[in-house]
């Protein structure tokens, strides 16, 4: 073992796309004990992860955090949906509030949240590369952005009252990568890429690998407060669509943006707006974040530039259908993994003495 102090990390939403990637990354980290909670077990299971089936809003959560001696919680159990649903709002906004509150109560040292640079807002009076202390001026209509904005605004008040709980907020630019589905990745995989006629803003992106690495670094460091994470450089929307070899569908901005409230209120309008996974105003004005603090605080810089991130994503999209499934999946029906897990658990229960009453909650 290394000389590093042993740490206990808990990832919420560990079965989701984000939680899974981060867990895989952190499982390779020495002297880190990794716990994960979610409403459903990870599929396929993650080797070495201590999975506990639980919702982030569970009132017993502080007890679990205290009993396991968790010092860092990475909250990734948020759902991203274009249009807000009551269940999502409860999970995202109320769930995050509950979780952060539980961490404060259980004496957890640090919480890491995933947020987005889109909260700075796309505006004509935006300078390029906004620093972390820039006010969040976004006026979102899409659900996931409204939730994220509400969480960050609440967090600013909360952090004043509870300065002892370090809350690191990693604001990610548009994430692009083969392993994740994000608004921009959906935009670039559509048969046509809609854009606003006569506008071609610079987009800031980050590759999925770099985004997960930024979260991992934030989880393992002693970061407090917001932190922008994006690839160096920027890529314009037209350039990204050209790299992805997708035809552009220009829309005249004035009537379209004027009718946006009407469109988002009707069912047909929402169906039409599903062609815009990224909010239309972000296709008009730039919304870019300064990444100077990323290197200063974490001592790490993204590996892929903006253009490289797009190229990597496009290359993976093109080869996705030709890639063969892993050898193990051919024998998935055998159920050998299940049997192995059962045997391992039996061996563990013989060795371990149950420490907490929560032991029985494990699957």
């Amino acid at each position, binding site marked *: 073992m290394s000389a590093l102090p042993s740490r206990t990390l808990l990832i919420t939403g560990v079965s989701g796309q984000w939680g899974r990637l981060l867990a895989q990354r952190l499982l390779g980290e020495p002297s880190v004990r990794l716990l994960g909670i979610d409403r459903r077990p990870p599929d396929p299971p993650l080797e070495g992860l201590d999975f506990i089936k639980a919702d982030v809003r569970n009132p017993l959560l502080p007890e679990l955090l205290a009993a396991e001696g968790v010092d860092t919680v990475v909250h990734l159990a948020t759902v991203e949906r274009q249009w807000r649903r009551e269940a999502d709002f409860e999970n995202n906004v109320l769930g995050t509030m509950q979780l952060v509150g539980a961490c404060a109560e259980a004496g957890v040292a640090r919480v890491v949240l995933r947020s987005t640079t889109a909260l700075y807002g796309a505006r004509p009076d935006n*300078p*390029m590369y906004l620093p972390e202390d820039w006010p969040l001026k976004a006026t979102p209509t899409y659900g996931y952005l409204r939730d994220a904005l509400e969480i960050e605004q609440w967090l600013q008040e909360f952090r004043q009252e509870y300065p002892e709980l370090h809350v690191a907020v990693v604001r990610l630019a548009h994430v692009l990568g083969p392993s994740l589905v994000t608004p921009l990745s959906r935009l670039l995989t559509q048969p046509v890429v809609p854009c606003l006629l*006569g*506008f071609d803003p610079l987009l800031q992106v980050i590759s999925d690998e770099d985004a997960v690495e930024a979260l991992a670094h934030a989880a393992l460091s002693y970061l407090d407060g917001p932190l922008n994470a994006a690839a160096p450089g920027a890529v314009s929307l037209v*350039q990204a669509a050209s790299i992805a070899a997708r035809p552009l569908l220009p829309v005249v901005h004035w009537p379209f943006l004027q009718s946006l409230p009407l469109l988002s209120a009707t069912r047909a309008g929402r169906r039409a707006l599903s062609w815009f996974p990224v909010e239309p105003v972000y296709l008009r004005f730039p919304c870019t974040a300064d990444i100077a603090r990323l290197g200063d605080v974490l001592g790490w810089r993204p590996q892929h530039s903006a253009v490289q991130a797009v190229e990597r994503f496009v290359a993976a999209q093109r080869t996705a259908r030709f890639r063969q499934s892993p050898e193990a999946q051919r024998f998935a029906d055998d159920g050998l993994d299940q049997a192995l897990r059962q045997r391992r658990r039996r061996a563990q229960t013989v060795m371990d003495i149950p420490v907490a009453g929560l032991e029985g909650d494990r699957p």
Partner: protein
Amino acid sequence: MSETNGFSLEVVDLGGASAPAGRSMPPAAAEPAGGEFLPVEDRLTAVRHRPHEEGRALLARFAEEARRLLSDRVGLDDRRAEELARRWSRRLGRSSAALPADVRQTLAQYADPNVWRGMGYVLAYLARAQAQAARRRAEGRYELDDFGLDMAFLNAVLPLGKYLYRYYWRVETTGLEHVPKEGPALLVSNHSGVLPFDGAMIAVATLTEMQPPRLARTLVADWFPTLPFLSILLQRTGQVQASPLNALRLLRQGELVVVFPEGYKGVGKLYRDRYQLARFGRGGFIRIAVAAGVPIVPVAVVGAEEIYPMIGRSHLLARLFGFPYFPITPTFPWLGPLGVIPLPTKWSIDFGAPIHIEQAGQRAAANPVVVNRLAEQVRSAIQQMLLDRLARRRSVFLG
């Protein structure tokens, strides 16, 4: 082989004089064999010194080339091809004999198939380069800088800017030695002309008249990014939204930054207020120069204030379209798109001696009184430069 040589020497009839020709002097003696490209200079001296030899040799080559083309490409039989080639080259020789000597020499050069072949190579190369550039662009393989500047795009639109600069407004630029050859500087200029052509002309001036060329990056008002197409044009040519954050970032990268402290009040100036500098904003440019520690270079643009003589502003239409101002000129909006054509006034752009305020210190730059005083200093320097130039100007259109 010797057969063709003999025949081609036979037909040479340049200058009317009967030129005795024989097998003893093959054309290869006058022209390097293999048909390489001779530099134009060498070719000219060759023609000057041995006009007849050169002409004969060229006609011979022409006949040979024509014969080969007629037999290989056109598909004539050898006899017929030879006959035609001979006739053509004789006709060419005779007609050129009637011409003055210098024209004959020029024609002799053009009769050289190598010239045409060379031109073909150049054209093919250009076409190939253009096709490759278009392909790179279609595949998104181009580079944008952090603010969206696209050097290839800038080079593509620069000829238009150069045309406006040299021939339309005939811009006379002085004092470029005050602009640093490298490193950052803040260029502060008067603003006018309804549309920001003055910023474009300052950029063309530093791009074309400075050695090495430098791109001045203008800070543009928040209204321009909201306009379709113009927003792309401005961004791709290196113009940046006006804010201290952007200006500082650019200056720290060592760029030249142009700022128009008058803002909308300047660009939307009425004709009767021309060359009277409006208030210099809130002095933000002073704080930027102090924070970045860069000198201020005052710039006076004369001529731009008359390109659209704005006799009035419509507040109602401005509100309706969401414009900061809606200009009424003798031609706009009455003539529609024709009213957007600017008047061809004579321009001058004067760069003044740098004003060094960088040692003022951050503390002083936070004090509005000090900032106002410094801003007033820069403003009066530009106003004086404007007045100096106007005193020398005899005509708005002729300078």
